[in-house]
């Protein structure tokens, strides 16, 4: 379970303090697949980062009792000047996973080939997303935090992600932030809508989508 209680997040900007999240409450149970809807800048990614523990909330608490992935998006989690393999090695070490096994899976899944030996900073954002997905799936988290944008694009890869994540690992929890109604409708069984720093938990995915469309 993940439980967010009264999450407030403020950013200090030159024009003063901006409150992005203003008392957000939500709960994710094992196996649930949540879609978080909201407009650009509504704070979806910020919430994801707070759940993932990358950023700390200004106030409020996050309780976690399952292993949670880092927020999987285009950026973060990798050291640009190191090769994909070195990043893999580091991540295998800190998550106590077997390097050889992980490497085999990543080779197979991300299909980066010899580019795995190049510095990550030379990767395209798509390649980075592949690496991030492959690594996080190899680690076998109990809950995945995903920025939906990484799954659009390369159709073949998106298909494989869906297969690995939604079919083979259907017992895992997911929190996906997205603009794409179709995507949410297809993959999630719950939805919540973020607006003006407040979170509305919706009774069904359809209700969330209607609400989002009516803004």
């Amino acid at each position: 379970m993940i439980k967010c209680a009264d999450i407030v997040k403020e950013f200090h900007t030159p024009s003063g303090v901006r409150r992005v999240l203003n008392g957000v409450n939500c709960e994710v149970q094992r196996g649930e697949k949540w879609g978080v809807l909201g407009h650009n800048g509504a704070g979806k990614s910020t919430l994801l980062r707070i759940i993932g523990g990358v950023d700390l909330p200004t106030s409020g608490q996050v309780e976690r009792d399952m292993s949670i992935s880092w927020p999987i998006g285009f950026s973060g989690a990798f050291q640009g000047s190191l090769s994909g393999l070195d990043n893999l090695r580091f991540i295998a070490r800190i998550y106590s996973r077997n390097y050889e096994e992980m490497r085999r899976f990543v080779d197979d899944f991300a299909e980066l080939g010899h580019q795995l030996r190049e510095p990550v900073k030379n990767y395209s954002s798509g390649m980075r997303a592949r690496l991030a997905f492959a690594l996080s799936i190899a680690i076998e988290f109990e809950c995945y935090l995903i920025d939906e944008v990484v799954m659009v694009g390369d159709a073949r890869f998106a298909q494989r992600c869906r297969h690995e994540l939604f079919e083979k690992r259907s017992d895992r929890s997911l929190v996906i932030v997205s603009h794409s109604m179709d995507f949410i409708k297809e993959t999630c069984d719950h939805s919540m809508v973020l607006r003006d720093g407040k979170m509305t938990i919706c009774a069904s995915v359809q209700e969330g989508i209607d609400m989002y469309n009516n803004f």
Partner: protein
Amino acid sequence: MTRQIKRHDTLFSNFFLQYKVIHALILRELHTRYGRDNLGFLWVIGEPILFCAGVAIVWTAIRPAREHGLAMTAMVVTGYVPLTMWRHCMARAIKAYEANGSLLFHRQVTPFDIITARSFLEIIGTVMAGLLVMFGAIILGYMQPPQDWSLIVLALIYQCFFSFATALLAASLSEMSDLVEKFVSVISYLSLPFSGAFIMVTWLPLRYQWILMLSPMANNMEMMRGGQFGLEASVRYDLFYDTWMTGLLLLVGIILTADVRKHLEITG
């Protein structure tokens, strides 16, 4: 439920995890800094060696062989090695969190681990470089072997903790305020006279000696010299003061480090 990971967090398992993270960070730091090419990691020692040996050679060449009755090369080596350790630890710590934002995407990596890994590398590097320069100088006859190794080891241990404490402080404070970041290099330069690297406490007039004694590093340097020269030099250090001052700095450093995540805006 395919592969359910049940975790029982105990104090021991947490320590073990932290040990593993720091270990991984050290290896990663070696790779980022020196590349993966063969002996690149030797630069951990190479860089401080060039520093220490360079300064030792230049000072030996241009300064009188003895100052206040003490051999110049030994003075420089015992002074410059701990000084380098401190300055490198601090320089590596400034804005370390911002530069390593990508690491903090992984929840088990804490700011404390990052500084520990970086300081560890600097400390190992300078200590090994210091020993090599020292043995080199002894073999070439520019320096006598230390009279009392145990005092040198004790001084080094104190200096390690002092360097680590200042690294923690510099890392946290430089994230909390940009002003600190700008001033740290100035401060580290202006504080050279208080480091005790180039002078001894007893060279000062008696009534000003207390000023130098306030600096933990100067106390450590005195210890170093005591170990190197033995009875030849008159040294003054206050172990009691040095211990609680270093402990206090370490404590404040750890508290600030535990608190610093609130101030970080991680990009990357």
